[in-house]
């Protein structure tokens, strides 16, 4: 079985982004970029399935600006077998990403797609579900455990109130939650080896997908700043202020 893992290049999760003063967006120049953390988790799961003999071929796909190939290289160093980079310089919406992924799935015929549950830049949480819909495949989102059962997957999902186990028929789309696994680091020898692994360079036009944005972003602003607070000296003072000053208890 092949597994397809979409990996997005995003601002590193440790970076506190700055909003441009003119409202045009977030400053991306000279900012540390990394693979979306949920995609590292998705990829790790794919690699573990391969190590367990359930999969032979892992394809990492990134859609985005030229340097997305670095993200695919990282995926190859972690353990993906080959990469595809679909170049697109502008912001791209989940629906267009899902359409490109659908076209790739139709070419590559993977038995499973594992995506991240959410890209930590746009915070959309849409792409995996959209891909499943476009393919007419079942979906198992927010996965914290995956069990392979030949023709099916048993997936434990993080839901409101606790956990749910679903069984989906393969092929399927799974999206990873934080507790699925702890992703490995790419080791130096593997980084060297990854340089030899093949990466296919593509454009959205190759897949006949129109990536023009459907939604119009009018402006992007910094959030309202909170007023500076005070330090209290004791629990007694805290309770007194909550009761008599803030009036919240």
């Amino acid at each position, binding site marked *: 079985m092949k597994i397809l893992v979409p990996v997005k290049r995003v*601002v590193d999760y440790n970076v*506190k*982004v700055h909003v441009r003063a003119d409202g045009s967006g*977030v400053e991306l120049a000279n900012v540390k970029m990394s693979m979306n953390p949920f995609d590292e988790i998705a990829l790790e799961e794919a690699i573990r399935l391969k190590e367990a003999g359930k999969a032979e071929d892992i394809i990492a796909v990134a859609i985005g600006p030229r340097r997305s190939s670095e993200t695919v290289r990282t995926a190859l160093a972690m353990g993906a077998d080959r990469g595809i980079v679909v170049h697109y310089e502008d912001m791209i*919406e*989940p*629906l267009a990403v899902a359409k490109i992924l659908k076209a790739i799935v139709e070419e590559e015929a993977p038995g499973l797609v594992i995506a991240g*549950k*959410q890209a*930590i*830049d746009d*915070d*959309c949480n*849409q792409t*995996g*579900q*959209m*891909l*499943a*819909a*476009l393919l007419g*495949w*079942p979906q*198992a*989102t927010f996965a914290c455990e995956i069990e392979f059962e030949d023709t099916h997957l048993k997936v434990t999902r*993080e*839901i*409101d*109130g*606790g*956990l*749910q*186990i*679903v*069984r*989906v*028929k393969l092929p*399927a789309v799974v999206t990873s*939650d934080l*507790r699925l696994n702890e992703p490995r680091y790419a080791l130096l020898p593997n980084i060297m080896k990854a340089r030899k692994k093949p990466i296919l360079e593509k454009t959205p036009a190759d897949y006949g997908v129109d990536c023009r*944005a459907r*939604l*119009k*972003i*009018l402006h*992007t*602003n*910094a*959030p309202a700043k909170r*007023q500076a*607070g*005070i*330090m*209290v000296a004791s*629990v007694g003072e*805290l309770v007194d*202020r*909550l009761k008599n000053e803030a009036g*919240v*208890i």
Partner: protein
Amino acid sequence: MTTLLIGEHHNTAIRDATKRTLSAAKELGDEVHVLIAGYDCGAAAGEAAKLAGVTTVLKCDDAMFAYPLAEPVAALVLGLADEYDAIMAAASASGKNVMPRIAALLDVMQISDITVVKSATTFERPIYAGNAIQTVETDEPKKVITVRVSAFAAAGNGGSAAIKTVAAPQNPAMSEHVEESLTPSDRPDLASAPIVISGGRGLRSQQNFQLLEKIADRLNAAIGASRAAVDAGFIANDRQVGQTGVAVSPELYIAVGISGAIQHLAGMKDSKIIVAINKDAEAPIFKVADYGLVADLFEAIPELDRELARLGY
């Protein structure tokens, strides 16, 4: 022009999320219909019909929806979609699961996790863990929107909507529910509780969360947590507050033994009053706190409990 709101409920009652999403839906200015898809869900449909501003409740009562899975719910909504200009749901685990599936089948872009309705076509939503706020305009033929529950007040009662029964779709039968393990709780819903007390890695064990339970009992608060506390198994996954967990904005948020990472702040910095209790005076959580207390939580929390008891809470 009509909006279809996909109601959240547990068959016998609607969830608070439905009432709050309704407030957002009403701001679009159109008539609102509520869909209750469930099994033995007459009571939930009845409750939805009483909400002020709902003109019709669509009830789909079928064993298929005993545990609503994304594929059959999307099939049901798609069958109804012709009649509607907008489809809305809470940005809860279930809304996030099903709505993009519906959007893709309608070939429209979803607007996720809105916090403000500026006009019927313009919305605000946080991106980058709430470090930027995007104003988004749509001219999609149908609007598919998920709503950040904590950003809207709950709609009240006062309506008397007609309840219409709709037929269940053919079950796509690609997935099946196996089992569910929910953590029973008598506490208010985390996303809408007026008071939330959250614990982090500083709590050190599952056992120690009982310290917070005591305070929560006195204040009728919901219990939340940081990712580190959930990852360490101190508390259930659905308690995670943050960018990739639940967003809350209570009247009072008490963060105990939580450092205040960007991802955690994303889920709670819109709270009205924030209290931070941390032994490290440099912890970033103090930058967003209205009241900060530098203390060892294992002394401060029992003392807080005694102080609240003394005052009759």
